[in-house]
């Protein structure tokens, strides 16, 4: 079922609901129907909360009927990555180890969504504990890319991306630690944003890598992403790392597609071996398009970016080895091997071996190694120093340019299974996205066309300095406007009917 309602943007739906032309219940139902029809192929959701969603929709309609003010996205449906705690739905993080855990509290972002009248349709699939770039590390099977269901939707926020791309919901929320919003957005042909680190609250976001995790919006248009960014972001006293300041003016910027006079820096390090020609071609065109729109294109070099991958794969596993230690079968979740004779230590070890997947185990052990006495200085300690050098490269680059651009990821969506047991190959998907996580600055991916080789989506990554999130929206809006002029619609509208495969 693919009605007019599921083809609309969040912005359009919000207007419709506010004016009374459509009820929030109708809108929710239309999307729930779409989910029911497409889930067997896509497997984007781990939990669909139909009753609760309709209840929330009814509440919005009631408020509208009572003449109360509605927020800018009231009644709009949303797909929430299963890494956010929800007090009325299970939270699995794509893992067996949580064993059906129902959190006794909502994440701050979950609360903000509810207060805004956004209708949460359910929890989406993800790579286990956000570790991966394909959703194949989910304990519950991968999600599929609606552009070609034999291919991955990217990861770790693959479920939310697939859901939005397939029009199961106009809005999605993911988390980006090494690219886990931008990369799936790119390969699914939608918009995905990583706000400045600390811009959106991590309270209630099950931690993978504490100094890198950043919740962010997914949508089919830049304006929709900005509207959601505005609603979900802002200071949270429950998160000590959250920015104590106003949300940057992202909605204004999304409505102002003007880059005249802006300096756009092309990062020299993000090309070459490993980059699919079709991706580079679409990227190049996007850059030329920005130039035609009035931007000045320069080339910048960030020499330490070639160490970004090893730096990330030391810091993230180190933090996650500590963050995941709490999953020990003592207080909640899976418990294996407690036959009355075994010790706590044994039960912990058996449970964790049974409950965690291979990638999680690899990263935990890697982190334990990097933090071990005798190795700390050479590995974790060194990585944090090189991280400073990467931040300095960004600072230097932002002295020359207002924003930096690159492909969001080196290739289009790869086939399911192709890299599943090849960790190093899988890690390469994050080549372009990782530096912004290390430096904490804002970055997004906006669709810039289909690759010639395979007709699959390509994403343009735009990066801005810390706290300058509005800048990425301004440039993205310009690109989107130019492409819309060329194609007649946003790229997401071209997603094939799900019966088709390539």
């Amino acid at each position, binding site marked *: 079922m693919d009605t007019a309602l599921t083809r609309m943007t969040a912005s359009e739906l919000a207007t419709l609901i506010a004016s009374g032309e459509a009820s929030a219940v109708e809108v929710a139902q239309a999307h729930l129907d779409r989910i029911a029809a497409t889930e067997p192929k896509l497997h984007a959701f781990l939990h669909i909360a139909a009753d609760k969603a309709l209840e929330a929709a009814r509440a919005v309609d009631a408020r509208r009927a009572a003449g109360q003010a509605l927020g800018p996205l009231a009644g709009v449906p949303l797909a929430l990555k299963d890494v956010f705690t929800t007090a009325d739905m299970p939270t699995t993080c794509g893992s067996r180890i949580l064993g059906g*855990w*129902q959190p*006794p509290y909502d994440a701050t972002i979950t609360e903000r969504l509810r207060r805004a009248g956004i209708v949460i349709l359910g929890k989406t699939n993800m790579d286990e504990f956000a570790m991966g770039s394909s959703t194949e590390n989910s304990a519950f099977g991968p999600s599929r890319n609606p552009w070609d269901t034999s291919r991955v939707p990217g990861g770790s926020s693959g479920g939310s991306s697939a859901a939005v791309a397939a029009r199961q919901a106009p809005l999605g929320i993911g988390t980006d630690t090494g690219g886990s919003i931008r990369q799936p957005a790119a390969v699914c042909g939608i918009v995905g944003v990583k706000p*400045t*680190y*600390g811009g959106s609250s991590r309270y209630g976001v099950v931690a993978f890598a504490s*100094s*890198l995790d950043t919740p962010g919006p997914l949508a089919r248009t830049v304006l929709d992403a900005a509207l959601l960014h505005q609603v979900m972001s802002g200071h949270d006293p429950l998160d*000590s*790392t959250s*920015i*104590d300041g106003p949300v940057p003016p992202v909605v204004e910027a999304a409505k102002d597609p003007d880059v005249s006079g802006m300096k756009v820096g092309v990062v020299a390090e993000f090309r070459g071996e490993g980059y699919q020609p079709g991706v580079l071609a679409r990227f190049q065109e996007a850059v030329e398009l920005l130039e035609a729109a009035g931007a000045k294109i320069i080339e910048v070099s960030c020499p330490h970016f070639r*160490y970004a*991958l*090893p*730096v990330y*794969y*030391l810091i993230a596993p180190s933090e996650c*080895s500590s963050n995941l*230690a709490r999953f*020990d079968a*003592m*207080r*909640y*979740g899976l*418990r294996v091997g*407690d036959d009355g004779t*075994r*010790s*706590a*230590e044994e039960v912990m*070890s058996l449970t*964790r*071996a049974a409950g965690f997947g*291979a990638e999680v*185990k*690899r990263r935990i*052990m890697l982190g*334990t*190694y*990097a933090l071990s006495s005798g190795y700390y200085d*050479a*590995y974790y*300690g*060194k*990585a*944090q*120093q*090189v*991280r*400073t*050098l990467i*931040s300095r490269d960004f600072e230097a680059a932002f002295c020359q340019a207002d924003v930096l651009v690159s492909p969001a990821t080196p290739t289009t969506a790869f086939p399911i299974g192709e890299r599943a047991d090849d*960790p*190093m190959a899988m890690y390469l998907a994050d080549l372009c996205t990782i530096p912004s996580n*290390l*430096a*904490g600055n804002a970055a997004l991916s906006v669709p810039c066309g289909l690759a010639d080789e395979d007709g699959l989506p390509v994403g343009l990554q735009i990066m801005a300095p*810390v*706290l300058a999130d509005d800048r990425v929206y301004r440039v993205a809006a310009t690109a989107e406007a130019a492409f819309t002029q060329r194609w007649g619609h946003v790229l997401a509208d071209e997603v094939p009917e799900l019966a088709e495969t390539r």
Partner: protein
Amino acid sequence: MPITRAEVAHLARLSRLALDDAELDHLAPQLDVIISAVARVQEVAAEDIPPTSHAVPVTNVLRADECVPPLTPSEVLGQAPTVEDQRFRVPKILEED
């Protein structure tokens, strides 16, 4: 410096992961490859470079010493594998603290 299977087994113990032989055989070489790859950071000269503490630096984030209602015991214990006397019942602990 390659990492041996025995060292990987040790890491598994430290991380409380009861890996069987088949898993160890599978994961150990993969870890070896990854560790060699990440060891590249040692190429970078960084003697006087301060390690990044937080991506967006901030200090003194503190809260007032004021009470917030806690969870109820049923919320706390409701999904515990085993409960006794309103406490979490856990298997015997071997290591003295």
